[in-house]
């Protein structure tokens, strides 16, 4: 299979490639959002810890 033939997907390129791009994009969003969720929780926890320690001091 030659390269242009591969990319044309038998004439369905306009449907096949957006599908895969969208799916992979959503997967990437999931990773990003999960990471952000963790980071936010971590910094919030850190703040809570610092606050309680400041109160004790």
């Amino acid at each position, binding site marked *: 299979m030659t390269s242009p033939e591969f990319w044309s*997907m*038998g004439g369905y390129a306009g449907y096949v490639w957006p599908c895969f791009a969208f799916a992979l994009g*959503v*997967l990437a*969003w999931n990773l990003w959002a*999960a990471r952000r969720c963790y980071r936010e929780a971590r910094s919030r*926890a850190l703040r*809570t810890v610092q606050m309680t320690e400041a109160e004790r001091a």
Partner: protein
Amino acid sequence: MWTWFYRLASPPYVYGLATALTPWLLAGAGLAIAAGLVGGLVFAPPDYQQGDAFRIIYVHVPGAFLSLMVYCIMAVAGAIGLIWRIKMGHAVAVASAPVGASFTLIALVTGSLWGKPMWGTYWAWDPRLTSELILLFLYVGVMSLRSAFEDSQRGDRAAALLAIVGVINVPIIHFSVQWWNSLHQGPTIAKIGAPSMPGSMLWPLLAMLLGFALFYGAVLCMRLRGEVLNRERQSTWVREAVRS
């Protein structure tokens, strides 16, 4: 066995487990999805009826399958949280909801992109896609109900109950939509995912299914870490974990 089950209810254990599992799950998901992509896009022969457009199933079917599975997991985890008052059950449910909703979105978008060349329209009210759309509404309902509560514990429990009610309804909705479609004689092209597939077409699909499932596991673990930290902010073990 039972001690392991009990340990799953303990936040520090879950946090450690999620931290340890994340890289492995991510690596596995990456490998399986990469293999599935290459196999599905390059090695699988074009379908004799649908040509190369059939390759869309390699993202559509895993998305649709996982969206249903994650909804069931969410309901079961919520039920565990509701019945046995296990906080980690709610944490799993909360972490699962956005992932499952995003999988429904994948199934919907790829399904309608597949429908355009096959049926001549993006949205033909195909029963499976319609059920998938209603599933998305169910996800949105559960997530909005949870976020509407200021008291997160109450929100967790209310959302868990709704997820359980929804999971009873999912087969009913599926059946009713199918029944409705059979009346209207909708488009009857052999639907995505024919039962008898040659091996070269089948293995990339299985690889993608596995990849999506592992990916869900990885994202679940990552979100779970955040959820556990949010819920256990006041405890001493979090202090140790955050400092390091």
